[in-house]
């Protein structure tokens, strides 16, 4: 018989989740632990604005066990999202990926200069959402 080692979620990851629940009060924030102290988070749903169809989708990312030192990189949205003006997504937004088993569009935005706090880590989701909205204009 083998026994799985129970690994506690990193307290910084728990803090990020708490911030996300505050920052996205109308969404469900699902967390799936990875067994190493981190895990995948999916915020469902978020509003991308009228420049995208559908306007509402999920936003997800892997929260590394090394938070708050690691970046949260990359982030993902649902693969079905297209621009309403008919144009393709531009870098660093790229189609054809998967996240946690879901077909996904990847947003590859690095943040190497954020302060190492859970609050700053959680803020990345809001910043990336803003970036996606602006990218379609």
């Amino acid at each position, binding site marked *: 018989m083998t026994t799985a080692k129970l690994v506690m979620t990193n307290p910084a990851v728990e803090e990020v989740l708490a911030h996300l629940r505050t920052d996205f009060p109308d969404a469900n924030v699902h967390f799936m632990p*990875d067994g*190493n*102290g981190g895990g995948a988070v999916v915020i469902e749903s978020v509003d991308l604005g009228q420049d995208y169809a559908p306007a509402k989708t999920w936003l997800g990312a*892997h929260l*590394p066990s*090394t938070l708050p*030192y690691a*970046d949260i990189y990359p982030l993902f949205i649902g693969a079905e999202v297209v621009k309403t003006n008919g144009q393709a997504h531009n870098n660093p937004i790229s189609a054809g990926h998967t996240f946690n088993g879901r077909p996904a569009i990847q947003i590859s935005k*690095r943040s*190497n200069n954020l302060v190492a706090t859970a609050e700053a880590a959680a803020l990345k989701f809001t910043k990336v959402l803003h970036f996606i909205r602006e990218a379609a204009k």
Partner: protein
Amino acid sequence: MTRNVRLLFTPEVFQTVKAHLFPGDEYEHAGVLLCGWSQAADRVILTVREFLPARDGIEYTVSPEMHGRIEPLFIDDCLSQAQEQGLCYIAIHNHLSEDWVAFSKVDFRSHDYGYPTLLRLNKGLPVGAAVFGTNSIEVDLWMPEGTRHQLAEARVIGSRITHLWASTAHAPVSNDVKPYDRQLPFLRNVGQGLLSRAKVVIVGVGGLGSQLLEPLVRLGVRRFVLIDPDRIESTNYSRLHGARPSDLRGEGMLKVTIAARLIKEIAPDAEVLALPADVAKGDVHQHMISADFVVLAADTPEARLTCNAVAQQYYVPMIQVGTKVQVRPDGRLEGVFGAVRHVRPGDGCLWCNGLIDRAGLANAAKTKDQREAEKYGVDTPNPAVVTFNAEVAGRTLNELLLAYVTSSGDLTRYPAYMLIDLLSGEREVISPTKEVGCPFCGTQAGGFLGASNSRRTPVVST
């Protein structure tokens, strides 16, 4: 009592302590050190995080019999701070001696009288005392389980490491000096003794790390910890010192096994702990804590994160090294650079200087499948050439030697980073950035600096 305490200072705190204890008036003065503490290998290691000076005549008073005492209210305040931060309490005072210092009978009587109570009040944390001469320190440390320990060695981890003992009789000596006859005029017997007792940890024994081994053994180092999870491959055979064609058979020999074999062939008496493991996983980094010197020659962001934290948290002197051959997308050579970076407590922090790739850290914590799913752009292996590694390794070894064995009490902070243009041979020496409030090298409460076991070292997975 066991003589196995290692007491570690930053230059800044040490200078403050010395200025308070020896202001030039030939009286005794006192204060309290708050220290992180850990036990590793055969050492109890104390990292001095803070010095709380006792004000003469108010917090430190002298009786008509000329016996000094630290006042109870000051002790209580210091103990509260120690408990709050999970630190050890060490009361200090000075004697007017130089290269030799010891507690007096009165000192010991006061320890026997007061420390059982202090130990109880400090709730599971060690308490103790240290007495300073101008060039010597002695310690009487009381551990929570009831054991008592004296000083093995004290160090000030600056650009040059200052070594102090209770008396010069405790300084290490090299018994077999003949093989080192030609280097002794430079190192002297104490320097050779320090090398013969030193435990050097090398994280990453690949193309660069493997080049450090033979010179270190021939210098006289006899205790090694080698940490590397990788096996040799045909693509790195050309750069791996000590590798033999037979090592490529099957799945390939572990790099730490090749490194250990090389050391043992030169010095069969060497102690080598070969760990085929990732320093950023589980508790592998614990093997660094009792090191006398660490060389970080692994080039992953997670190794940098963990080792940088250990260097700041446990005051382990470290040099981070690397070479980079930069090739343009059209295949033309852009440049070849080497870096030799000292990471010392409160100085040279890799985090402050943007040398820990945070997206790389995020990647390291993912499964291979997830990394594949996220691939974006084309990954090409970094170019590497054995001769470039050799030049950087040579500088690294000299930096280690200069830092570890050549101090004569020099507490100056010299620029910690050296960048080498390996094509032109030019060298640039720079002072690294230090960010206010850095979680690793900052002095704010709750930071890693000197915190030892009171903080959890960041690792990728447990």
